[in-house]
């Protein structure tokens, strides 16, 4: 079971994750949130999430397996 979280305090709302993985993240009230309907078990999506975790400038996105 994959769990993806975004630290609300840390998130800058820059929208980078939303652009890298639009299926998984979206913007709400100037913050990024995880789309609850996203298929996190999908291997391609997991690869995208890993890239996004690495790209987040403040390390706000965490992925746990």
């Amino acid at each position, binding site marked *: 079971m994959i769990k993806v979280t975004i630290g609300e305090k840390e998130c*800058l709302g820059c929208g*980078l994750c939303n652009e890298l993985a639009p299926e998984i993240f979206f913007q709400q009230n*100037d913050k990024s949130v995880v789309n609850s309907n996203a298929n996190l078990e999908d291997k391609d999506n997991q690869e995208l999430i890993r890239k996004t975790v690495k*790209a987040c400038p403040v390390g706000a996105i965490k992925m746990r397996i």
Partner: protein
Amino acid sequence: MKNNKINQRILFIIPNLKNMFGGKGGVPGHPHVGIASLVSYILKKAPNEYELTVFDEGLESDTRKLTKKIKEFKPTLIGITTFSYCYVNVLDTIDRVYKATKAPIVLGGAHVSAVRGQVLKENPKVKYAIKSEGEETFLEFLSALDEEKKDFSEIKGLLWRKGKRIVENADRPLIDKVDSLPFPKFEFFDLKQYPCYETKGMPILTSRGCPYGCNYCSVKLSMGRGFRPRSPKNVLAELTYWYKKGYTSFDINDDCFTLDLDRAENICDLIIQSKMKINLQLYNGIRVDRVTPRLLRRLKKAGVVFIAYGCETGNQETLNTIKKSIKLDQVIRAVNWTNKAGIKNAVNFIIGHEGETYDRAMDSVRFAEKLPTNFVNFYNLVPYPGTAVFEWAKKNAHFLVPQETFLREISYRDNSPIFETDEFTKEQRERVMKMGFNLYEKKLLKLRLGNTLGSIGYLVTRSKTIHDLCLKFISTRTGWRTFVRLSNHK
């Protein structure tokens, strides 16, 4: 060193820029950071393999001197840095270089990253171009030339000609470990020729890249959206290096200096602990949502005397459209905090955003007038190729100059809109921009010359003749040096 001989003789050229009022021929305040970084990288990685020299056209009013330099130096390769702003000057330089030598020309700089293959398409005299960060690509390209290779397909980041075809190679990953890069080699330039030699000022880049997605911004095209910070220790080492040489004033030219608040505070703390007496300016702008009163106090203590903020528009709906991800009350709050911290500040605006109307643009002028900031900047929106606003304009606006050539003709300092819409016509755009530019000049003169002299200066320069004479004066070496000296916020 491969064979104890000089492999290439490379002449780097920096074409002329306009001055800050949009007039011709402003003397650059300091050496070009990109070329200084590139030279430094080459000298570190391949010492003694290449003979390098630089020619900054901004320092020379006589265009014949470039030809003379080429004749004397006999370069085997010419590197020209390009910027979309003043691109027409780049084209002029290419023409003159081509007439003077048959050495191949390689273009680099921000404009190549923005337009990519287009730059070779419209410049048949140019053989190569390098997109995005140039350090690694340029050195690899030099090695390929040394080995007399004819095929360059393996060099990431390079654009080249294969017969009649223009080939754009894959993008090169951006340099991740920016601490590993050598400091820009400003000594490579004739420092005495630049106003910074007198003001004892130097530019410094403490990070590369900006993660935000502002729809008009082209920085991400050349520097990427990943934030790549240098460590505070590494930043301090560069400041100390110049401080020991007598330099005490530094322009932080980052795109997002305070993105990581802790890092910014740590840089300040190290400066404070070092007891260096320096002043720092943030003309390039920081985000209003990435400052806190605590950070501003630290910045002040470390020596920051000037901060510019990017606001871009005084209308919240437009702010949302352009994906700036800030609120207008954050702008007011940041300015108030900055004033309270005792740091002079400015706020930047752009006229001509996606979906903007006359009324919304006027909100920017009204908002700027009321802001308790020291001065405001107004810019003409330039829809740089590769940005979201360019794509929007192609579909929704009427270009007033051909899409292929507007970068040559119009810059962000000109009162000439590049496109118009039914909701915001050319005439309305010119009217708002004129008001914005007037406000900029009024507040700028007051800041530089003081309230009384600045107000008189503003009133006097409303006469077109006097205004033009002042611009002419600023475009001279003495005039520009005087102005730069006045700009030093000590």
